[in-house]
């Protein structure tokens, strides 16, 4: 993994979301350790979402279906959380949903950061 490129991922995210960016954290799914975190990132929240992802995958087995690229959680108040599982890693992004349009987040920002992250992982 290329750490410099990983930092670039975070920069892209901050730039694309502008004032709507609240916090972000990338963890390893095996042990829940933090790879990279922005200021104000809530590590406890990121690790509990690691457990949530496992639960989602199990729940989907009963349907049956498989989790795709992301899941989005509406949070009471002005926040929302976008979770992007990447196999061994999981990226959690907290946004201000009043300042970020969901369409922009899912159709513009998400593909860009997925590409950047994949580039960082293979480098």
């Amino acid at each position, binding site marked *: 993994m290329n750490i410099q490129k990983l930092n670039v991922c975070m920069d892209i995210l901050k730039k694309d979301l502008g004032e709507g960016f609240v916090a972000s954290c990338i963890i390893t799914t095996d042990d829940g350790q933090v790879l990279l975190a922005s200021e104000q990132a*809530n590590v*406890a*929240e990121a690790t*509990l979402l690691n*457990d*949530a992802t496992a*639960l*989602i995958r*199990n*729940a*989907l087995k*009963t*349907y049956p*279906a*498989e*989790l*795709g*690229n*992301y*899941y*989005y*959680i*509406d*949070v*009471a*108040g002005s*926040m*929302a*959380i976008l979770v992007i599982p990447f196999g061994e890693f999981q990226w959690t992004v907290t946004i201000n949903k009043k300042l970020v349009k*969901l*369409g922009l987040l*899912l159709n513009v920002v998400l593909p860009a950061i997925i590409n950047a992250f994949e580039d960082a992982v293979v480098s």
Partner: protein
Amino acid sequence: MGGSVKKDIKLIIDNEDAENAPSAEAGIKDELQRWPLFGLSVGSFLQVIAMERQTCIMEVYLNSGHFGHFCFVEGQLFDAVCNDLDGETAAMEMIAWENVRLNIKQILNTSSVIRKIDKNLMLLLMESTRRRDEIMNAGEDMDMEDAEDIEALDDVEAVVDDADRAKFDACLNLLSNEMGDALTAATISKIDEDKVLSTYQTTAETARAFLRLTKFMKNAFETRSTVILGDHYVLDLKDRKLLVALIIGEHQWCVVFNSVKCTLGLFRNVIMPKVIRAYNEMNL
């Protein structure tokens, strides 16, 4: 379009034995000719008109003191008139009538038609069923007071449960009508009681699995972080599907749909508000 419906209804008349038909006024041939349709319930006719997106007036005749009409524009119920009543009150009155005679007239010009009924027809039919069940249950309760039979009371609860379940089924039918073939599966569950109330093209096991997930997230957020779970979450699934879990009151709706046929934006901005409105109107 109007002509084809009329033709179908004519077939019903032709197949019926006119001798057995409920007569408006026995022996008055003119009256029979004015309301030539019979043999189906008011609700069934209303649903046919709505499904066929007809623009017409459906006249209903119970007896010489009770008659009225429903007014449809492109399958949407716009108004109803029954004696001194109009709008939803008149519609609810006439939906409950049985053994009626009917007539259908086309509306050629809809410019003067004023919409007085906003509620979905399905909701009105369900509300009518609920009221009828309430009356029946009240009657059963009276009979059971002397019996003091606990099992019988359980049966009444089951009837009430069934009435509620029918409402939830109606909610999912509404969702299915709105989403068409984009809808892949849906469930409605009661969060606190782990109770699956209605399912569409999926199993109760899946509904329970997502109830566990919602409870986990609710509890985990409350105990391990500073945020509180909001009213929905969205899962991107493989094969271009999305799962949206909606938390409305004490119930959870899980809806799986094809994200090509129905975008998330369409679901959130058009379907979700309609579903929430229908849920609220049903007083669940």
